């Protein structure tokens, strides 16, 4: 069967136009760039414009493919890089857990409210994320400084004598990530919890289960999909975060997003930055694929 006939059979008429426009855009500006990053990760730093060596060379009628593995070698051997990857995962994981612990009660409580107040409450939860992300992180600088609001407040109350060093430590990064991503944790949890049938819990109470038991045996398992969605939405981008560790974290807040940034902007080493990016992608590939599958089904409308 010719390609044209195949296409005609599956995509009659104007459907082709509707599909091709966004498809081509995403291919060109999202998918192909990854391939280019891959390609450049195999080249060497060069004093040139663009600042890297070509990997395909045509010399003396011979086409040679020169794959420089130096960037990847550096990633594996240099402990700084390895530390940064591990540290990123650790920071992202802990922040995700904190966000879950804080976000779940909020989502739960709102889901139980009567419908009219529910919507207002959710709007209030989401509203901060409509204001600038950058500015909200900036706000925490003033709060967490040594002579910042939090320390001044605690010292005034006499709880502490000397200021707590929070800013420019990993602790500040945790706070920052939780703060910035909290709405992304609450939203999917809420969407899930609000669909729960109250009568299931009532049946449990009727059969003698105490509230806490009912929660752990009924509500929690049923909200699994929401928990996974929320955790994915927080953890995956958090691994590659740059702004938060840069503004709030200190020199020992190693995150791979900063490493990439430094390689690119400070060292002007595009190949190295590319290698960092590729490895980051590989690390995140499995969570991203899981998220993709769940999200695609959501978009298409099939019930999981």
């Amino acid at each position: 069967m010719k390609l044209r006939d195949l296409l005609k059979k599956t995509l009659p008429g104007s459907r082709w136009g509707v599909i091709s426009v966004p498809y081509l855009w995403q291919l060109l500006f999202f998918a192909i760039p990854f391939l280019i990053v891959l390609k450049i990760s195999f080249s060497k730093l060069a004093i040139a414009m663009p600042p890297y060596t070509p990997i395909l060379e045509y010399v003396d009628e011979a086409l040679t493919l020169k794959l420089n593995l130096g960037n990847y070698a550096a990633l594996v051997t240099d402990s700084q890089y390895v530390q940064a990857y591990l540290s990123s995962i650790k920071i992202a994981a802990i922040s995700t857990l904190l966000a879950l612990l804080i976000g779940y009660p909020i989502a739960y409580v709102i889901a139980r409210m009567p419908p009219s107040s529910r919507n207002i409450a959710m709007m209030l939860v989401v509203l901060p994320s409509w204001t600038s992300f950058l500015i909200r992180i900036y706000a925490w600088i003033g709060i967490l400084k040594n002579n910042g609001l939090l320390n001044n407040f605690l010292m005034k109350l006499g709880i502490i004598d000397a200021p707590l060093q929070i800013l420019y430590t990993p602790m500040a990064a945790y706070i920052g990530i939780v703060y910035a991503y909290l709405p992304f944790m609450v939203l999917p949890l809420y969407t899930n919890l609000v669909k729960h049938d109250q009568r299931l819990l009532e049946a449990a109470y009727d059969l003698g289960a105490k509230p806490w038991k009912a929660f752990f045996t009924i509500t929690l398992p049923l909200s699994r999909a929401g928990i996974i969605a929320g955790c994915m939405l927080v953890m995956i981008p958090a691994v590659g975060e740059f702004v938060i560790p840069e503004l709030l974290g200190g020199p020992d807040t190693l995150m791979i997003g900063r490493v990439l940034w430094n390689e690119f902007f400070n060292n002007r080493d595009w190949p190295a930055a590319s290698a960092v990016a590729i490895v980051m992608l590989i690390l995140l590939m499995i969570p991203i694929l899981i998220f993709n599958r769940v999200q695609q089904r959501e978009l298409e409308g099939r019930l999981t």
Partner: protein
Amino acid sequence: MKLRQRSLTWLVLGFGFAFLYLPILILMVYSFNESRLATVWSGFSVKWYGELLRDQQMLAAAWVSLKIAFWTASAAVVLGTLAGLVMTRMRRFPGKTLFGALITAPLVMPEVIIGLSILLMLVSMGPLLHLPSKGVVAILIAHITLTVSFVTVVISSRLQELDKSLEEAAMDLGANRIKVFFLITLPIIAPALVSGWLLAFTLSLDDVVIASFVAGPSSTTLPIKVFSSVRLGLSPKINALATLMIAVVSVAAVMGWWLMYREEKRKQRDMQLALQDNG
């Protein structure tokens, strides 16, 4: 049980909202601080607002950001609607899984990766496509690519809720697919298009990482400027800027919510009237 539930609710919400809003409120309060030290209150003053409005570079950057955000949002809505139609209305075709992945991956992709990859692509292939590798157009392309996914999610969810029999009825009455889309589907999902637009606008206006990769010397955006300023330390001018942005967003949000509330109330009233005079 009910009372305990109520007090639990208030406790959780109290802490939750305090956590979310205190930093913002503090920010706004200190924008009126007389002193430069943004953590010691020394008196009420609006001088920082004046300084902000006199800062030509800041204003220029703001203008660039607004322009980019506007066009990003507009393009993202068009692409997002098309993508939404593909995801919700079309049966399986070869390549649909890949398309779905391309549409959903940007939702969680770290921004440093998106920024780096688009820059490298524009540098490598830019001349071929007659596209600049840096500058406003580059930022536009990058932002559109980022925001299309979010807009698609908003529009897809609305399209799913749309009763398919409405579109079938329109076809049955003689309208072909294109007419059905413009006469029936589009007007009904219009609110989702608006929220999608606003979402894309906000995301674009707020982006610092991606813009840093692809911005050129003459295309500094507001977030880039704010970021470089903030790296050096606190500045009450930034507080003033923050307060203005928060004020605008809050007013817009309240207005939007109030409009929707009024619409709902009116619909309910109409339905009651209809039930009463069952003619």
